[in-house]
């Protein structure tokens, strides 16, 4: 297919803002929810801003359903107001001087519909999102969850071809977030066009997205399904998000020498060269003495640097070669009498170690 016939969103662009530079190549197919996950200042909002037309790209291009909306080479630029894009902002940005129904009718009105037609469209979306009873309230009188739904209704009422969501749930308290998340998932699956959802919350990304892009320092560092990303994190940041220990090392068949010190016996998949090794904190056994280990197990000494209670288990921060985060039961902590500064032995089965090359962790270079 030539680029001009690709449906959905195609972006291959660079955005420079002062010292910061964002360089991404991504696609989002109609009906697909692409989660963009990354730490603060990774360039997530800049990405949405460029796609919406609020910031022009400094190189490359953005296409929407085959139409060039921004191209730094040819100078083509479609103003934000002309782009068929719905944007749900992190802080919602509901117009404080307009009622809920007027907020939702704003886009149909601005796009040239008459007052009555805009009102009908607004009522349709308010009904669909279960907001009819709030029609005449001001945004200031809404709860966080209601405001979030109004923001979504307002974005959808403009009949956009592409939906952009910037941290849609971050302004909500934990309790509301779960309810809204479930509901949002339903509405996103009803949306026919592509959807780009930016978040720094891994759970939100795992639940809502069909595919994930991990953005760090203005670069895409990993791309894949939520399952792939959760199992084979490509960077320290992703590993932390999905709660895994991640080690870089050099593989030679069943043996991996870790870059940071230490080594692992792993299942022999004839891997050679640089690899990443992921290890679940719950897959490590803590013993007071050196355990008797078979050749298929790894055992190494470590010192407890810290203990944190996580609802039903205790996370141990262990320093050694290699260091690791390990989850044990509170009972085990009591039985073994574990405390900070104690010397313990860690062991894990070779089969618990997920070994993969960096290239396997991500469909890097956008090759689909």
């Amino acid at each position, binding site marked *: 297919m030539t680029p001009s016939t690709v449906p959905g969103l195609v972006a291959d662009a660079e955005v420079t803002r002062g010292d910061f530079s964002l360089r991404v190549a991504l696609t989002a197919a109609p009906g697909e929810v692409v989660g963009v996950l990354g730490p603060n200042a990774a360039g997530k909002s800049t990405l949405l801003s460029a796609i919406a037309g609020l910031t022009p790209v400094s190189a490359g291009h953005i296409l929407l359903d085959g139409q060039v909306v921004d191209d730094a080479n040819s100078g083509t630029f479609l103003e934000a107001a002309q782009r068929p894009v719905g944007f749900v902002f992190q802080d919602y940005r509901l*117009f404080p*001087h307009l009622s809920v129904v007027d907020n939702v009718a704003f886009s149909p009105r*601005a796009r040239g519909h008459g007052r009555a037609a805009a009102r009908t469209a607004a009522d349709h979306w308010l009904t669909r999102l279960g907001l009819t009873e709030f029609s005449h309230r001001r945004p200031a009188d809404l709860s966080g969850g209601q405001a979030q739904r109004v923001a979504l209704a307002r974005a959808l009422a403009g009949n956009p071809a592409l939906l952009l969501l910037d941290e849609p749930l971050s302004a909500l308290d934990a309790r509301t977030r779960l309810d809204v998340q479930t509901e949002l998932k339903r509405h996103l699956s009803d949306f026919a066009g592509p959807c780009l959802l930016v978040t720094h919350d891994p759970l939100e990304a795992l639940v809502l997205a069909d595919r994930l892009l991990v953005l760090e320092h203005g670069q895409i560092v990993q791309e894949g399904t939520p399952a792939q990303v959760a199992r084979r994190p490509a960077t320290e940041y992703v590993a932390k998000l999905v709660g895994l220990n991640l080690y870089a090392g050099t593989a030679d068949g069943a043996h991996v020498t870790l870059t940071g010190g230490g080594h692992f016996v792993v299942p022999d998949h004839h891997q050679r060269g640089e690899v990443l090794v992921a290890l679940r904190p719950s897959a490590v056994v803590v013993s007071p003495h050196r355990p008797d280990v078979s050749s298929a197990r790894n055992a190494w000494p470590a010192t407890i640097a810290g203990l944190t209670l996580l609802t039903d288990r205790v996370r141990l921060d262990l320093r050694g070669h290699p260091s690791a985060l390990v989850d044990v039961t509170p009972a085990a902590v009591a039985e073994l009498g574990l405390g900070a500064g104690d010397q313990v032995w860690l062991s894990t089965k070779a089969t618990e170690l997920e070994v993969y090359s960096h290239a396997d962790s991500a469909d890097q270079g956008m090759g689909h």
Partner: protein
Amino acid sequence: MSPPAAPSKLSRRERKRRAMSGGGSRSVPAPLLAPALVATAFLVVPLAGLVLRAPWGDAWSILHGSDAAQALQLSLWTSTVATAISLLVGVPLAWVLARTDFPGLRLLRALVTLPLVLPPVVGGVALLLAFGRNGFLGRYLDQWFGITIPFSPTAVIMAETFVAMPFLVVTVEGALRSADRGFEEAAATLGAQRMTVFRRVTVPLVAPSLGAGAVLCWARALGEFGATITFAGSFPGRTQTMPIAVYYALETDPDAAILLSLVLLLVSVVVLVTLRDKWLRGGTAQ
């Protein structure tokens, strides 16, 4: 060694106040108190004198017998028209100053806010030079259209607009600068063209400042004296506004001057009450 600190008495009430507000002593040092009292007296005593000296008994007949009604009427409608004109052209100017960037923008801002500090009489002279019968613009207005501006109610309105509009422009520009641009971005993503954004989002969001600026502008227009008397003269019923009427009445009929002044004082108090949220809360406003 310094002498031991002598404890002073602290009343129960003062203890409670300090506990509540968390502040320390609130007593005013004498070197600050005396000048503060002088300043207060200077500002308040003359106005109090105005109220005390007023011939309250004959107020109605005096006001009716003078040109006061005419002057008040003229002042009210000319300053209202001046405010309307200021809104019509001053708000777009404020938007340009706040939202655009081009070489010479700073110079433009300086020029249009100059009347804030310019002696009004200079404004009057300038207007006369521009729009007078022999002025570089007025000449052609006279020759081509037979329009003569000086010494007409139109001249009153122009003088008032010249002096008062910068107050509106400065107030609205400040509001536009501090307004959250996020709402305008949101409006753009919802398909609104720039003019629609201005009309439906920007203006409503700065409405409180717009109102304050308009009231301030109106009050300044109402009190205008120097530019008006220079450019429009003092023809009773035609160009003699309240402040000018007060000035002339002082020579012929002091009682009428006092009453006319009280009317203006009353209007000022009403304006101040209207603006209390914006101007009277001191440092904590906004």
